[in-house]
């Protein structure tokens, strides 16, 4: 995808970085003149994907989570990557309420939330290699011009 602005961030898979990742993406997206609802949507989706990399991807070990953002017109593309466990069966994992960690009180709604709050989502994953989530959000605010 061609782009007008680009940023990429990587950070340790520590849970305190979940809030940090949300702020970074929201701050980068602010140049799209978003509504409060649009900002909440992308913060929520980013939070889900980054949390998954931390708790499912790396489990008890520490690794790096990468978040890439590209702005193209009124579209924001967000790519969240880890080099963790990977997902065996992506289709099953994306089912609402499916979770491999019920003992941690996970709801299994992460993927459903990402799908609902973003306009596009693609998931690539390979066991022992890691997981990549690519999401796109179209911002309405710039459409009017």
């Amino acid at each position, binding site marked *: 995808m061609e782009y007008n602005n680009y940023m990429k961030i990587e950070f340790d898979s520590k849970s305190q970085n979940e809030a940090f990742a949300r702020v970074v993406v929201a701050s980068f997206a602010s140049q799209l003149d978003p509504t409060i609802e649009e900002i909440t949507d992308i913060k929520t989706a980013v939070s889900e994907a980054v949390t998954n990399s931390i*708790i499912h991807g790396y489990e008890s070990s520490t690794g790096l989570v990468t978040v890439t953002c590209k702005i193209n017109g009124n579209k924001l593309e967000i790519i969240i990557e880890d080099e963790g466990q990977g997902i065996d069966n992506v289709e099953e994992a994306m089912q609402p309420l499916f979770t491999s960690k019920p003992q941690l009180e996970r709801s299994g709604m992460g993927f459903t939330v990402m799908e609902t709050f973003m306009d596009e989502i693609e998931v690539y994953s390979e066991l022992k290699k890691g997981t990549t989530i690519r999401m796109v959000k179209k911002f309405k605010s710039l459409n009017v011009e």
Partner: protein
Amino acid sequence: MQLQYEMVDHTLIVKFDGELDHHSAENIRTELDDVISQRRVKNLIFDLNEMRFMDSSGIGVIIGRYKNISKLGGKVSVIHVTDSIDKIFNLAGLYNIISKHNNKSEALNCM
């Protein structure tokens, strides 16, 4: 994230102030379960008026408390739900097991 408590009869009203994600969920769970067992709480009302952010980790926290409370015959409800959190609750089918009210007095009336 900070929690504020108010007890009305056997109903505990828990007010969330801050962001509820996987990071904050763990402490919240421990603190809540302590308060619930110490004060011998029957029913629970979650007040989300000051909840500035919540992702699906919040569903886990709420359903987890619901399971404990309902085992002992109590009820759980949520009040002051923002649009974004409402969307998440609907996706998860949360309103099949707990009820939503506009404010504290409405919620207390249904306990």
